[in-house]
């Protein structure tokens, strides 16, 4: 647990050992160094930050800029314990908002304020990726689920962790080793045929053949952008660069998304196998797995799995006697949704503020450290061993011609059985909602937020649309990261919209004007909507702000920060109300 200290009391010697192993690598070690220092001192005081800057040769103003960017780094003293309660829709409607209010009362503190005894600090957190355990919180390093909003001292002091994942579905391909309440060990994974794709590919396939197989499979990215994976790999493989990198985007932060967390926590070797195969295919010798800072358990499990992989000769030099060398490094984020944007993620690994870069150039030619880079989502990489083992034909047995393969859906909110469900592309929303998740809990269906905070609302009229890229494109709906956030009839939609707007205003990096200014103004307009104080013209303002962010923002965050709001305005034209009725 963290210790509060006076700024006069910093024994910088404690940092020496930590920095000794990092200083040779320079700025890229900035986030790891800040994490380590905060682990020692509890927060990042000026002399500590200055020492880190000196050792890593980073200008001091830049060190401060980085600390200030990430919400989990503190440039001011903090309490001994920090409890972060998820404030996003699934948790909020399940009592998260009340839990936070009650906890503030209980401890007599405002948000972000240190309690009088220095013990506690409460924060409203962005989605913690624990939506199936709503309402959820991160107490210190411990993720707790299903907290009782009215029993603060109970959930603040509970020992042990949240319940295991709820995993189900029509098929269990990617999730075959998930849902057992414990991570699958290296031996367990191997017993089920694990790492056979890697050893076979290294022995029998050239890198080009691996890429052809991935291309033939029709696999597209599962993080939200749905870019063809094989094409991406081919681009990086053919690009010129003295070194190449693969990066696994495990910065899963889209509200309502928790699939990557389950995959990492319960079957870490499946991800590692796909990751190493990606490295082999493009000719990389080093890869980074960037995990969001809130996923403490996933980091622990992945780190242990990686160690086992090194020990077994599956990672490192001359993998399985093939002559292929590949090192894996796990990087931990520090509270910034924007770092899930691929170029912002590179900046973060490079030790900078997570500002997205202008594209082009694209990562395949100019990515991490300016080198050709492939960046793939966790779920995407987990498909790779399957494709190599079963061949592209085997993979195409799942799904449709245009949307082949298995797909994970994260179901949360007002359903009987929130959880992670694996299906083939092509099933309907109704199937997942009614047959797998047990139907709407507590009433009739009001709406489903499809695709996450950056997604769109659908109603019961859309329940029979098959979940494929082609069908959703026709219906003008996003698949996003596979989120189904369910709201029963009677849920206050304005409150949900305000929550989403709060999220984007908090998470905007501030680089480009449309998003920096628009997420703030969007939030303000929706704040007054929640109390029925909408003003004439608010609807037009929301549309102009929304379309400006969509059309003119620099990156995908800004371009989708209004998608859900705009879809709500279309579905429910009277949603904004002032004193004299709808505006």
């Amino acid at each position, binding site marked *: 647990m963290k210790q509060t200290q006076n700024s006069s009391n910093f024994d910088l010697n404690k940092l020496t050992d930590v920095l000794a192993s990092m200083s040779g690598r320079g700025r890229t070690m900035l986030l790891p160094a800040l994490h380590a220092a905060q682990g020692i001192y509890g927060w990042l005081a*000026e002399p500590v*930050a*200055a020492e880190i*800057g000196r050792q890593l040769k980073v*200008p*001091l*103003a*830049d*060190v*401060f*800029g980085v600390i*200030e*960017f990430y919400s989990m780094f503190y*440039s001011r003293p903090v309490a001994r314990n920090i409890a972060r309660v998820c404030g996003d829709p699934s948790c909020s409607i399940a009592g998260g908002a009340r839990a936070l209010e009650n906890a503030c009362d209980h401890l007599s503190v405002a948000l972000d304020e240190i309690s009088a005894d220095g013990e506690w600090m409460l924060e409203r957190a962005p989605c913690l990726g624990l939506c199936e355990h709503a309402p959820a919180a991160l107490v210190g390093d411990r993720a707790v689920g299903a907290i009782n909003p009215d029993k603060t001292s109970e959930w603040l002091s509970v020992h042990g962790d949240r319940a295991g994942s709820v995993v189900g579905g029509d098929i269990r391909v990617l999730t075959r080793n998930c849902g057992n309440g414990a991570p699958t060990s290296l031996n367990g994974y191997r017993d089920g045929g694990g790492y056979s794709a890697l050893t076979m590919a290294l022995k029998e396939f050239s890198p080009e053949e691996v890429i052809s197989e991935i291309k033939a499979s029709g696999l597209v990215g599962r993080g939200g952008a749905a870019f063809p994976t094989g094409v991406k790999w081919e681009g990086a493989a053919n690009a010129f660069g003295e070194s190449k990198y693969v990066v696994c985007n495990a910065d899963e932060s889209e509200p309502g998304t928790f699939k990557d967390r389950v995959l990492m926590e319960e079957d870490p070797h499946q991800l590692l196998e796909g990751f190493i195969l990606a490295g082999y295919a493009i000719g990389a010798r080093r890869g980074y797995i960037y995990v969001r800072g809130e996923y403490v358990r996933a980091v622990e499990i992945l780190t242990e799995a990686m160690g086992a992989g090194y020990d077994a000769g599956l990672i490192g030099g001359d993998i399985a006697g093939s002559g292929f060398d590949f090192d894996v490094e796990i990087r931990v984020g520090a509270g*910034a949704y924007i770092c899930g944007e691929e170029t912002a993620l590179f900046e973060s690994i490079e030790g900078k*503020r997570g500002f997205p870069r*202008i594209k*082009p150039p694209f990562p395949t030619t100019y990515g991490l450290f300016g080198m050709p880079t492939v960046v793939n989502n966790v779920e995407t990489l987990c498909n790779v061993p399957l494709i190599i083992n079963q061949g592209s034909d085997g993979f195409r047995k799942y799904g449709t011609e245009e949307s082949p393969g298995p797909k994970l859906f994260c179901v949360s909110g007002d359903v009987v059985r929130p959880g992670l469900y694996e299906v083939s592309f092509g099933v309907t929303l109704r199937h997942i909602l009614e047959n797998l998740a047990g139907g709407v809990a507590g009433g009739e269906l009001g709406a489903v937020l499809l695709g996450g905070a950056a997604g769109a609302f659908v109603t019961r009229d859309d329940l029979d649309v098959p979940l494929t890229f082609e069908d959703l494109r026709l219906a003008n709906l996003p698949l996003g990261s596979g989120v189904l956030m369910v709201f029963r009839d009677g849920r206050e939609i304005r409150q949900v919209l305000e929550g989403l707007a709060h999220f984007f*205003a*908090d*998470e*905007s*990096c*501030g*680089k*480009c*004007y*449309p998003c*920096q*200014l*628009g*997420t*703030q*103004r969007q939030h*303000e307009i929706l704040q007054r909507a929640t109390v029925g104080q909408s003003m004439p*013209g608010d609807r037009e*303002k929301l549309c*102009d*702000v929304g*379309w*400006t962010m*969509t*059309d*003119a*923002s*620099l990156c995908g965050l800004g*371009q989708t920060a209004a998608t859900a709001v705009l879809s709500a305005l279309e579905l429910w034209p009277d949603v904004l109300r002032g004193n004299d009725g709808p505006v």
Partner: protein
Amino acid sequence: MSDTITLSIDGQEITVSAGSTLLQAAQSASADVPTICYHDHCTSYGLCRICVVEVKGQRVLSPACVAEAQSGMEVETRSARVERSRKTILEMLDSAVDLSEAPEVLEQLSDYGADRERFAGGWKRSPDVIDDNPMFVRDYSQCVMCWRCVQVCAEDAQYAFAINFSGRGFETSINTFYEQSLPASSCVFCGQCVGVCPTGALKPKREWLLELGRTPDEILRMTRTERRKKKRRQERAYQTGNSSMGEKGNVSG
């Protein structure tokens, strides 16, 4: 590869050298594309998005200052989408920042028929003026976050790295290491940041004092005091055999 490319800007065929940005192409077609953050001598990061144009076939608008002109492109510099984005960005900026000393932006507000009251009442950035050195004052209530000062302080010119950002999103601001004063920072007082600031956010201290109604005599006295202090510091340092030429806060630019 040919050295020139031909594209259409607002229906006009135009030939420009390969590698030109859409902003350069638009300028050679005499199409007026407004900019805020762009500066000829700074790296373009495409921040303000006021220069966005519509390129046929592209999902979103393109920032003209960084987007490269490609052969056969059909570009609209004042389509309805472009106008809506520019007008909304200007209205939002106007509601967030004091633009009274940003004549170019004020002109854009009128060009695009911006409603200056539209987002009134929203959160406005209005930090106090920072007067911590004899050379210039910092009034970040006028800062439009164009980044130019940070850029010239770093790799775009001076390599002093005295300033960077703090906060994020709407609350992003320009700051020194732990908000220390400029004399305590690695600032070399080269003045380049003041030179590239498009608003009144960075202003020579004498200009500021004049505006506050101080007389030239008063101003001289006030800044002379500062110079004397500096001289005394240097003399003390020389006496102790320790040259202070590199001392932080010295005027060297």
